[in-house]
């Protein structure tokens, strides 16, 4: 039977907030609190340290830190709400303290403004299409938000659409468009015939879309192909024959669980055959 005093000490130890800098790259769990850099000096070894009140306006330099996915502001600290690895990005042009976020693996997509996604048109109602993007509600897409929209070239029910969200928050129905702010398609719009659409986890999509991803370069050397990545976990791929398309789909789905050596072996075996 445990003594109440030692239990209290151990339980408090588990809830002590850690500095965000020391936890970068490690796995964090929901419920942990993180301290931002300028607060570490105030904490000190004993906990409550008295600081002389400074009348100089410049002394209290508050850095503006952006709280990304998986983190929430809780008073002065950051509260972790999802399990994953903590990441940090330095600010590009000197303003603010950068972005902190949690890299988590999940299958379910939640619409975010600005994300490019692949959707399936499910219904036409009035002036808008209803597009299934894998979230909790279907997104709405207006007839006019395509480049060169006319009565003739419109998507039909069942078509695949690549577009981006202009409105996506928890209170409203998400809205997407297939043109950018200049009015040009920029690669968005109806995705062509044939090809295969399949679903992967969101973490894999982010890995594949990272700037220096080797997987896509290796896949491109294997067969000529067309490929579209949606941030909602959907990938559309099309190669010359159905067999090649299926091979590519299987490789991309399996990439999640393979190490890079296993992947290189499989690619070399396919290149020979």
């Amino acid at each position, binding site marked *: *039977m*445990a*003594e*109440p005093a030692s*239990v209290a000490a*151990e*339980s*408090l130890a*588990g*809830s002590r907030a850690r500095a965000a800098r020391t936890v970068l790259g490690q*796995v964090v*769990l*929901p*419920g942990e609190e993180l301290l931002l850099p300028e607060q570490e000096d105030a904490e000190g070894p004993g906990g409550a340290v008295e600081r002389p009140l400074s009348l100089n306006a410049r002394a209290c330099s508050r850095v503006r830190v952006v709280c990304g996915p*998986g983190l*929430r502001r809780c008073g002065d600290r950051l*509260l972790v*709400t*999802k*399990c*994953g*690895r903590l990441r940090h990005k330095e600010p590009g042009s000197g303003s603010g303290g950068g972005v902190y976020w949690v890299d*988590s*693996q*999940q*299958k*379910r997509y*939640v619409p975010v403004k600005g994300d490019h996604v692949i959707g399936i048109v499910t219904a036409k109602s009035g002036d808008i299409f209803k597009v299934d993007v894998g979230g*909790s509600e279907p997104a709405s897409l207006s007839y006019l938000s395509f480049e060169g929209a006319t009565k003739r070239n419109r998507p039909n029910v069942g078509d695949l659409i690549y577009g981006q969200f202009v409105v996506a928050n*928890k*209170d409203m129905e998400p809205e997407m468009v297939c043109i950018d702010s200049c009015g040009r398609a920029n690669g968005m719009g109806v995705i062509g015939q044939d090809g295969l659409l399949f679903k992967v986890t969101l*973490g894999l999509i982010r*890995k594949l879309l990272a700037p220096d991803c080797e997987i896509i370069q290796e896949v491109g050397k294997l067969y000529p192909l067309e490929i579209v990545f949606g941030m909602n976990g959907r990938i559309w791929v099309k190669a010359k024959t159905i067999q090649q398309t299926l091979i590519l789909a299987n490789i991309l789905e399996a990439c*999640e*669980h393979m190490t890079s050596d296993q992947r290189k072996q499989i690619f070399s075996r396919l290149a020979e055959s």
Partner: protein
Amino acid sequence: MEEETHTDAKIRAENGTGSSPRGPGCSLRHFACEQNLLSRPDGSASFLQGVAEKSRERLIRNTCEAVVLGTLHPRTSITVVLQVVSDAGSLLACCLNAACMALVDAGVPMRALFCGVACALDSDGTLVLDPTSKQEKARAVLTFALDSVERKLLMSSTKGLYSDTELQQCLAAAQAASQHVFRFYRESLQRRYSKS
């Protein structure tokens, strides 16, 4: 013609006529059945056996609701489906742990993790943590749900006879034991993220 049949039955089996595995002369629990609930499918039925299942569902749901950040997902329902593979005692505690891991795996935003710990009190006052099915036939069985931030009590479900001091002792023991569960959570989640 569509009809709704509502059957409410309490059956007493005597001298081996019943098919229950508990033996002759026992009584089955109260059960209720509703048919043709849904209009779309060709047939549907709902069967409720025993009130214990409903209360266990309610306990798990209330614990999850206390921890999940529901304000980030308005107008959304989160369904947790728990399937019992084998019951070797401490079933409610095991269900709570499974529900917590499933919510983390799904990426549902939570304000803390939670775990379930069960303990049994013997007739001479000895405390057994995580009792097996045989040990659960003790004087009292207490199950607690604790959160990971400050080991606060989220839910308690108790059955049997116990005194006030015994309750405090069980709670303290459960709080100490919850550390092991949370350490196991951390290790298994670290192992999962180390593969990528």
